[in-house]
């Protein structure tokens, strides 16, 4: 009785306050509704009730998924963005996702030991692929972290004496952005230009070195947009003459695809990505030479794992996956390369034989699994939209949301219109001939359809030189 009267009094007071504020203030976003008005809102009449009502044989409520019409998946031809994980890699990872869940840093029990053993085995597998010593491998979360750790770490460690870093204009965004960050911190960065085939000029690199001042040269091995392979061995041999200049190469696109030997190539630091070698995403590695020792300032501080360079518990299953992917890559590199080369030749020949005005961007002797083609008088993005049945990209996945022309192609000296009309074909271990033939058919059909719609193409057919037209009068 007492509680009831209390309740009614407080309710009345609330209502009074509510009506008072209503009359004084303007409408706020949330209007308190009176208690008696609150009720359950039924479904609108437009919704079919039978979708929600349970059938006789159901134990409870269950929404029946509307059966999608039979839809096929597009062909995957974007191997530079990521590669499918090899099913053998998944098979190797599964035990560590299920039963063997120990922390590899636990030294006091068998769960830790078995995980540590697995990590050590994987370390050896990764090291073997690049001709390194297992102790030189540091596991990270991916090539972006490796690049950040190395570029920033080496530069910052030597900042007292050396404040100069050399890189190229066609590097991946994570190297370029790390360098931008360093320049904000007062470092001097040289962005080397590349020649029209995408390869750097060795003489130009040598001229850019400032002995005693340059701490790091960072040049990627295989470009992610054009497949251009830089002369890493020559660069390494040249840099050996300069003491105290460390050589880093971003080999995310190169590991497992072309032979690498860090000793023969005189590489001091190297970045590896797991998901570009048919391994899992979220794991990568950095090679940091111990003899002669390369020192760098760690970004992550903590428990001192990975020689203190990268603290944090190692993800055992992912590392096992990376190790297995590397060991498969080493075993099948020759067969894979021969196959990718054959498919790439088939694609280039098939397209250029039937479509005119196709330009291949980048060095012809680059990695064959990355074919960058520009189709003149066709806009790359509209070509992508029209090619619904093929998963392609016009450039790096990081910039695929923007309509800006690729900075890599611009660095190669490509005209703006050619950089806008480029497509990148990524061919990998699991690509088949049937897919390539299908792609050729679609490309040929779509390009000619788009060109038929293009007034520019019409002018070109009439023999008008587009560069002579004064476009400003419109």
């Amino acid at each position: 009785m007492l509680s009831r009267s209390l309740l009614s009094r407080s309710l009345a007071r609330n209502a009074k306050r509510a009506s008072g504020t209503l009359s004084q203030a303007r409408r706020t976003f949330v209007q308190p509704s009176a208690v008696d008005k609150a009720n359950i809102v039924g479904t609108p009449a437009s919704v079919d009730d039978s979708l929600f009502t349970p059938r006789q044989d159901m134990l409870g409520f269950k929404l029946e998924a509307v059966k999608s019409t039979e839809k096929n998946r597009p062909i995957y031809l974007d191997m530079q963005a990521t590669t499918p994980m090899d099913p053998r890699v998944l098979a190797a990872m599964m035990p560590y996702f299920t039963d063997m869940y120990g922390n590899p840093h636990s030294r006091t029990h068998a769960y830790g030991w078995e995980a540590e053993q697995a990590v050590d085995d994987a370390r050896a597998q990764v090291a073997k692929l690049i001709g390194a010593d297992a102790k030189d491998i540091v596991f990270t979360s991916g090539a972006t972290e490796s690049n950040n750790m190395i570029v920033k770490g080496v530069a910052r460690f030597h900042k007292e004496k050396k404040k100069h870093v050399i890189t190229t204009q066609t590097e991946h965004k994570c190297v370029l952005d790390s360098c931008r960050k360093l320049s904000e911190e007062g470092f001097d960065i040289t962005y080397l230009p590349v020649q029209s085939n995408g390869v750097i000029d060795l003489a130009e690199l040598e001229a850019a070195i400032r002995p005693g001042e340059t701490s790091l040269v960072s040049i990627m091995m295989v470009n992610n947009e054009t497949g251009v392979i830089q002369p890493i061995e020559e660069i390494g041999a040249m840099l050996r003459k300069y003491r105290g200049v460390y050589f880093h190469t971003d080999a995310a696109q190169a590991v497992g695809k072309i032979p690498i030997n860090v000793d023969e190539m005189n590489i001091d630091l190297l970045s590896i990505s797991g998901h570009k070698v048919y391994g899992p995403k979220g794991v990568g590695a950095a090679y940091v030479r111990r003899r002669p020792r390369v020192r760098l300032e760690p970004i992550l501080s903590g428990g001192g794992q990975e020689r203190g360079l990268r603290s944090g518990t190692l993800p055992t299953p992912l590392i096992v996956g990376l190790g297995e992917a590397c060991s498969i890559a080493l075993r099948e590199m020759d067969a894979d390369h021969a196959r990718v080369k054959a498919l790439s030749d088939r694609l280039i020949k098939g397209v250029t034989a039937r479509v005119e005005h196709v330009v291949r961007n980048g060095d012809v002797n680059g990695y064959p699994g990355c074919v960058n083609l520009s189709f003149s008088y066709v806009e790359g993005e509209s070509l992508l939209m029209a090619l619904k049945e093929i998963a392609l990209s016009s450039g790096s996945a990081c910039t695929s949301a923007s309509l800006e022309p690729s900075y890599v192609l611009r660095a190669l000296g490509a005209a703006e219109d050619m950089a806008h009309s480029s497509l990148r074909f990524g061919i990998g271990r699991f690509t088949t001939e049937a897919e390539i033939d299908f792609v050729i058919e679609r490309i040929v059909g779509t390009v000619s359809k788009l060109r038929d719609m293009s007034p520019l193409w019409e002018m070109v057919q009439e023999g008008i030189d587009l560069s002579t037209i004064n476009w400003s009068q419109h």
Partner: protein
Amino acid sequence: MASPTRAQVLSLYGNLLRASNSFYSYNFREYFVRNTRQRFRAHQSEADSARIKALYEDGLRELNVIRQAAAMNRLYAGPRLVVEKSGTPPSPYEGGKAGEGGGDAS
């Protein structure tokens, strides 16, 4: 274990092909079938018995891995690719059953 007999090697080849064929994903299926064929062809005229034995043991390990991998692949079957002939999709379970029944000659 002595050097494997011809029948054992052929049985391994058959089992590997069956297991490879049991992948649901088009790309994996094509790759493993091709890979198996290529590897057996490459060593077709192998004479060194120690080498044959080592290759056979590798093959047995590989068979286990491929069976596991294919089984997991079938669990998460998605839509088919545009290049696959929609008329005759391989039954998603044929390989698993055949593989279990086949057994190894080891």
